[in-house]
């Protein structure tokens, strides 16, 4: 258990003022019932102090975190709170995350702390009751604003029970971190349609046996072959057992290139420059930034493609990120998203000097490092992100910034006379 603190909040001030009024009335009128009332209020202060001293002494808390979160989506932090006291229940317990060393200087609205800019506010949870020797799980909700690594430092347990006069707070130093994925959107169907058209392979089958799809050829029976695969007609003709071989199915493939090489160097994300400060504090970008939009769009496309059964791979140009070869698995997708989440925040090994694989899709923030052929691959400009993804109906302005250029499909259709 960390350091504890007693504070008098606004409720306590009101309590003291009312008690002072009653004392004045009692002194003026000498009415004994008012002395009783004032005595009861003094008793309230006494029990508040006593309860504050006794209540949180035996309470422990442990943070239970998921391994990742998504920017803009709800993150639920869970806390296991255990009251080891055998006799005293705890009521009205607030579990709160805090950062920085300024926790002991409280202001009116709470502790003066450095809430990471990845969060709009410190997560807070509430436990109404925790019996003696009991354990409950509280939860605090928060919404990470930006991608990156979210680091938690301290947990504060506090209670102002019973009368709100005195608040006892205990600080627990528990570090933890999770990766916040870039903001993910649902990719428009038109993108998948265009992607299918732009697929240079255009085949869904691999010219190789071993599958279960179409007929590929005949071969001699090998031990272990299924009885169903035996071609009895040919076997009877030849006089030896012949097996039928079928082609393998090949899922569509997506090799995504995130082209950040064309962006200005100062616009690119960079590691923390301040010594001793976690990189997360430096990551002060939002979706007004075309680079961030490109990263978010790339992550959205990768997730969507994985959901559609694509084998996915990724190359980031302009940033030191490893090449992800084409593969289809959830850990593979998660590694790529995590790589995008931590883009610019952690050092990766050097990126590719040249492209060994033909890209299927290119996502860029507006400036490209080279001219991409729109006939060979699908090129998505992150500046027109609203055309590629389905944005939430409410809060578009806030998500994309006030100066974002929002053009609806209807307006485009009206101006061009059809889909482009």
């Amino acid at each position, binding site marked *: 258990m960390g350091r504890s603190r007693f504070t008098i909040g606004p*409720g306590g001030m*009101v309590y003291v003022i*009312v008690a002072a*009024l*009653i004392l004045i009335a009692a*002194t003026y*009128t*000498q*009415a*004994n*019932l008012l*002395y*009783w*009332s*004032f*005595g*009861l209020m*003094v*008793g309230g202060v*006494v*029990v508040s102090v006593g*309860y504050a001293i006794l209540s949180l002494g035996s309470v422990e808390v*442990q943070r*239970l975190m998921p391994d990742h979160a998504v920017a*803009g989506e*709800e993150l639920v932090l869970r806390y296991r709170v255990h*009251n080891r006291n055998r006799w005293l*229940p705890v*009521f*009205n317990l*607030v579990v709160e995350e805090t950062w920085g060393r300024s926790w002991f200087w409280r202001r009116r609205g709470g502790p003066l702390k450095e809430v990471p800019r990845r969060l*709009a*506010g*410190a*997560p807070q949870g*509430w*436990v*109404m*009751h*925790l*019996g003696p*020797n*009991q*354990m*409950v799980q*509280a*939860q*605090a*909700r*928060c*919404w990470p604003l930006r991608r990156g690594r979210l680091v938690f430092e301290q947990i504060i347990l506090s209670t102002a*029970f*019973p*009368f*709100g006069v005195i608040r006892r707070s205990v600080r627990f130093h528990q570090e933890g971190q999770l990766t916040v994925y870039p903001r993910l959107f649902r990719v428009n169907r038109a993108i998948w349609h265009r992607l299918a058209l732009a697929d240079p392979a255009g085949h869904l089958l691999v010219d190789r046996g071993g599958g279960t799809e179409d007929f590929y050829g005949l071969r001699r029976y090998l031990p272990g072959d299924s009885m169903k695969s035996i071609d009895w007609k040919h076997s009877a003709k030849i006089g030896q057992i012949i097996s039928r071989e079928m082609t393998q199915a090949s899922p569509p493939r997506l090799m995504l290139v995130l082209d950040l090489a064309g962006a200005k160097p100062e616009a690119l994300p960079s590691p923390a420059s301040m010594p001793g400060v976690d990189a997360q504090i430096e990551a002060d970008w939002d979706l007004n930034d075309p680079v961030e939009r490109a990263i978010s769009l790339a992550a959205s496309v990768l997730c969507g493609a994985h959901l559609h059964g694509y084998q996915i791979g990724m190359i980031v140009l302009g940033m030191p990120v490893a090449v992800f070869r084409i593969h289809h698995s959830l850990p593979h997708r998660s590694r790529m998203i995590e790589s995008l989440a931590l883009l610019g925040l952690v050092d990766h090994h050097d990126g590719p000097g040249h492209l060994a694989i033909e890209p299927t899709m290119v996502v860029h923030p507006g400036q490209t490092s080279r001219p991409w052929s729109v006939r060979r691959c699908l090129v998505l400009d992150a500046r027109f992100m609203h055309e590629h993804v389905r944005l*939430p109906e*409410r*809060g578009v302005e*806030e*998500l994309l910034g006030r100066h974002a250029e929002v053009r609806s499909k209807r307006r485009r259709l009206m101006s061009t006379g059809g889909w482009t």
Partner: protein
Amino acid sequence: MILLFRRLVFVQVLLGIMSFCMAEQNPELLLMAGALAAMSWYVAEGPTGRPLPQWVILPAAMAAVAWLFVELWWSRSQVDTDQLVRAMGHFTIWLQVIQLYAPKANRDYALILVLSLLQMVGACVLSVALVFGGLLAVYCVLSLFTVLLFQLKLTSDHVLLLTQRSAPPGTTVERSKAVMGRGVTGHFRWTAATLGLVCGGVALVFFLLWPRSSRLEVNPGAVDTGMRQVGFSSQVQLGVATGLSSSNRTPVLNMQVWREDRKVGDHGQIWRLRGAVLDHYEPTTKTWGRGRWVQSRDVSATLPPSGLELGTHPAGQPIWQADLSMRQSSMPNLFTLFPTTLVQGANFRTLTVNFIDQQMVLSGHETKAAAYRTIWVQDRQAGGPRTANVIQEEADKTDHTDYARRWPVHRVQMRRLVEQVLARAGLQRDPDALSTPQDEQVAIALTQFLQQPPFVYSTQPSSLAVAGDPILHFLTQGRQGHCEVFASALVALARSAGLRARVVTGYLAHEYNGLGGYYVVRQSDAHAWTEIECGSRGWLTFDPTPTQSLPTSAQGLPRWLYWFNQAYEHLEYTWLSTVVAYDKETRQAVLGGMGQSFRQATQGQNTWSARAIGWIKQQIQDWRFDLPGSILLGVSLTGILLALATLLRILIKRRRRIVALQLTRLPTKQRRQLARRLGFYLTMLDMLDRHGYYRPAWQSPFGFAKELTESNPMRFGPVLTLTEHFYEIRFGHRDLDPIRKKTIKAHLSQLEYNLGQRDVSPQAPGILHQRVN
């Protein structure tokens, strides 16, 4: 929780309104405000209710403020504390009623609670009656729960608000379900009860110890009706043209009566406690007071510990004594029963006494509420008692034969009236004769004349509002008046007949409380009567006030009602004497008594503690052991103490086992048996707990064992086996035979060995209950 809180606030507001209206004794306001407040639940809070809009609420609040100013303006001529408190109370009532109809945020609830509290403070200023005290107690209990729930609601709302603020725009954040452990209701009640008791204890200590000035006059339940309140006065003014009100039920004193060391008391039995003796009537001011000659005979006396003797108690007469405790320190007169032979003061030493009329007054510097004992002669026979005042009085007669004899107003008319009255009774008396054998019959005849129609008891002032002498007007025309008028008229008639007579004011003690064994005397029991000297029998008491107006016995009530009345009176007396009347003097007396008790307990010779300490010292002195004997004694005592400590430890340990194994609901025999047999399971849990594996209360033993085993079968294999043994014994009613005991022991040893080894296997993600140290 929120619904319960809203209900509690609603009830609290209703209770506050009711308390204030009862304290103010304003049934119209209670009916109106109570009905409006009650309706608010259906209008604003009910399932189909909707709060009124702000454009209705704001003008209503402004009207309440305006009404406050109007009320203060109307009562500007008689602005005092009570009037101000009443106006503020009305304002807070209307403001609360308006707030009940308004949409309420937390600050509105806080406003309502503070207004309600201020209203109760105002009610405390207005009244101290027992009923109000009970309402205040209920209000305090209700407030405790309301404030506790409000605190929970505030925190919940605050957390919700912060969560909403941190959510992205357009995101709807709903209130999460409250996280609570098992037994929340019971824990909440117990916590609230404990908090309430501690608060009450602190309040009691604070109440007893907080310094305060002398108490102001308390008037429980008195109503300002514009009439003069009945109460004791050391002079009688007949010319006052105001009526009398007997609503002032402030207790003045309580009295216990003893006859030969046996307590005497009966409801309805009347004792006349005389406080002031008035022998001089001033016709110009129409006022009875004490004559200068009598005042010159006042003597300052110091009370000896055995008491001040005012007369010799006649032999063979039973000793009647009364223990009186004054409840107000502002009253200097001592109240005694006539004729008094002895006065013993409990908490005062000096007083001014007059041996002629036996009026006693505390000395000027004695400001405490007096407690004293008085002994008097109850049944006087002719020529029997020879009290000191009679002796003194006879000596004084030589100097002043006109003491309490002459009547100065309308002598001829009064004399003629007296002759008519006596003639009607077949009596006559020479007005110049000092005494005659028929003096008592004359006094009785005059008394009976006034007690019969057309004379009627009345508290209305009409009979006194005359330009001439009010007594003559009462006797000849008005024939209506209160006790002071009747007493004055009898004195006037008796003096016109040549008898010595004087007016006595004091109290009638008639309200006997069977539970407390004492008479309660209130201000409303104030009375005036007459004392007439009847020859050799001395001064006798005559009360001309018609008997219908005197207090009647309550014995005619149904038995349950009678006892209820007794209990209520006793409770009210206890309430008033211990809570309401607690003042500077009482505080000093309480603290002094506590200090004295402590000193007696620590230093006294006859207290139980001193005797116990002395006994121990004596035993130590008497028991003279040699060295082996002392060692043996020491070893024996140590052994006994160790045995007791071990027994206590076993009991505590067994209790903890029973609780930990959740066996509390089983029969005693079974749970003790199982607690003994299932100890191995707790040993296993402790073992795991030491290594950071904790079983949460919500998880079953099997679930816990399965989770551990799946994470590392080699390491936690014994856990599963031990858990199976647990189930077999707990639910399968298997015995803990030696073979099973041996197996369990082996598994425990194996588990301990396994836990001691370094765990190299990857930690299974399913193990969520590993404690982080």
